[in-house]
């Protein structure tokens, strides 16, 4: 242990890492982030799950042992490898048409991540802009935006989504658009509420008192304060979207059956639940683990993004 490490330890013991970001290089920042993660194991688990899923979705074609669409009735309804009649060729078994479940789960991650990520990005960016305008402008603009927002929020969410999905038809783009648009009001609300609170903060008055102009105040002083809560909300919304996508798939309203998705797999497995349970158990597990991981990650992110909470634990 060299002197610097000793120094760090001293600060850590005092509960506050004084030399945080002393070295502003990217390597130092990553190293700092890593230590922060290492201290909060649930965040580490969440991030790992998240990264694994993103990695799987990205390299699905390289990772999957079989073509997820290739049917082979000779090997249909095979149980997973650790069950007596299992076959090492199909680790998690096959479905009623002989398609490899493991490969289908890997490909299914693509749909989930696409819907979650693109849907949230859309809701996040649009919702934040609208919320900023509503919160900072106030007055009539604010009332109009909030009335519209409340009207959309008053619609029963899932029923509305099912309704739109039924009209627009089954395609990945439609699902993303539906989730992206219907999620905007939540981001508008949170953003607006935060802006209303932040607008009254002493440091906003202080920023005005040193002659900062309105755009500088919105983008430099208010927005960084928003990012923490909004990114946290985004991770939670992302896991919610993954759930809802699976739900829509289960109802047969998500992506077409030709695209493997976790929801579609659940729907197909439902008919065989008592005899061939592995057909629905593993895609179900994939959904649960993803949601769990994302929520853990979101919790950790909330702490990590707020400099006030960036004290070293223990």
């Amino acid at each position, binding site marked *: 242990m060299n002197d610097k490490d000793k120094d760090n330890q001293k600060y850590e013991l005092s509960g*506050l890492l*004084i*030399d*945080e*970001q*002393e070295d*502003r290089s990217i390597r130092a920042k990553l190293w700092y982030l890593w230590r922060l993660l290492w201290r909060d194991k649930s965040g580490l688990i969440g991030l790992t799950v998240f990264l694994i899923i993103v990695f799987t979705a990205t390299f699905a074609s390289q990772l999957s042992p079989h073509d997820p669409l290739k049917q082979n009735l000779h090997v249909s309804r095979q149980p997973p490898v650790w069950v007596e009649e299992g076959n090492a060729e199909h680790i998690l078994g096959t479905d009623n048409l002989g398609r490899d479940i493991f490969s289908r789960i890997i490909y299914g991650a693509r749909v989930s991540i696409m819907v979650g990520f693109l849907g949230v990005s859309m809701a996040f960016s649009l919702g934040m802009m609208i919320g900023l305008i509503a919160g900072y402008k106030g007055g009539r603009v604010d009332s109009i935006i909030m009335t519209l927002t409340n009207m959309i929020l008053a619609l029963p969410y899932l029923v509305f989504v099912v309704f739109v999905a039924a009209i627009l038809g089954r395609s990945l783009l439609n699902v993303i658009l539906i989730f992206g648009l219907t999620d905007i009001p939540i981001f508008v609300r949170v953003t607006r509420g935060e802006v209303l609170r932040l607008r009254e*903060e*002493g*440091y906003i*008055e*202080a*920023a*005005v*008192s*040193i*002659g*900062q*102009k309105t755009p*500088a105040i919105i983008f*430099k*002083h208010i927005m*960084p*304060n928003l990012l*923490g809560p909004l990114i946290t909300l985004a991770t939670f919304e992302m896991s919610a979207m993954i759930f809802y996508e699976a739900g829509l798939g289960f109802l047969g309203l998500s992506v077409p059956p030709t695209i493997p998705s976790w929801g579609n797999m659940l729907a197909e497995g439902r008919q065989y639940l008592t005899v061939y349970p592995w057909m629905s158990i593993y895609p179900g597990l994939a959904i649960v683990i993803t949601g769990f991981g994302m929520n853990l990650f979101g919790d950790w992110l909330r702490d990590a993004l*707020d*400099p*006030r909470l*960036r004290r070293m634990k223990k």
Partner: protein
Amino acid sequence: MKPILSVQNLCTRFDTFDGSVFAVNDVSFDLMPGETLAVVGESGSGKSVTMLSILGLLPRSSSKVSGHAYYSAGAGAAEVDLISLSSDELNRYRGNHISIIFQDALRSLNPVLTVGEQITESLATHKGYDKKKAYKRAIELLELVGISQPDKRFNNYPHMFSGGMRQRAMIAIAISCTPDILIADEPTTALDVTIQTQIIELTRHLQHELGMAVIWITHDLGVVAGLAERVLVMYGGTGVETAPVDQLYEKPLHPYTQGLLGAIPSIAGSGTHRLVSIEGSPPDMFQKPKHCQYTWRCPHVFERCWNEIPPAFEVAEKHFSKCFYDLIKKEPRAEDR
């Protein structure tokens, strides 16, 4: 010499659901270059609102400011009436020529930006400094306000600073563009006595170094005595007495100031007598004043006090008091001046 800031007949009114609040009623004062003016008065007397009005920091929708605040940037420079400017025009002066430091330094620093970022911000806006130049200047400023290891502290977040250091950082931001006027709005109230002394010393040192005028708002008369050259006493939203500091302590010529000074506990006292207080409570700010606001509590009140608002009488050299009662002759003032 021409005053650097001349406030004339400043009035501020807030419109609320319960009616109008008359927070500042006819305040006038001059500030000379390099001078320290202390503004004293109890809570709600309109000290802070006066300063916020001058800088246009009150919400424009719910407040109404009238009067004038002429600022002239030095000999020969044109006078500007700060009250008449729009916020965009005011932005050229705020932080550049006139700075303010607030009472609660933690609330005044953005928690998600580093202290360094917040110091360089003002330099970039007003002086157009690039990153490198602003960094250099910020380090100088941090050193100037007495923060050790400024290069390390530059990248710290406000929560990593102690209370005194935060106020020092706020002062660094305020003086970053070497303003002509520094308004200190009770900057030491939230600090303990030791730090309070340090901050006062620091401000005095900086004032000497940079040659700026300081308006020091406080309700601590002990601070005033050691710091200011001139004092403005405020009561009920108006300046009731202005005097050089020695004169004010020696010979207060407004009943309110007398009461205020009489209420200071003294160490020399035997400790057997009770502390003196001013009877009654501050005036109702929902009424537009039609007479002197101190009448309800004044020991010398007579009929005229209930009918007119007293003008500022020059009771001694550079010593003004808004009172119809002549405290030297112990009788109502005969002449109108």
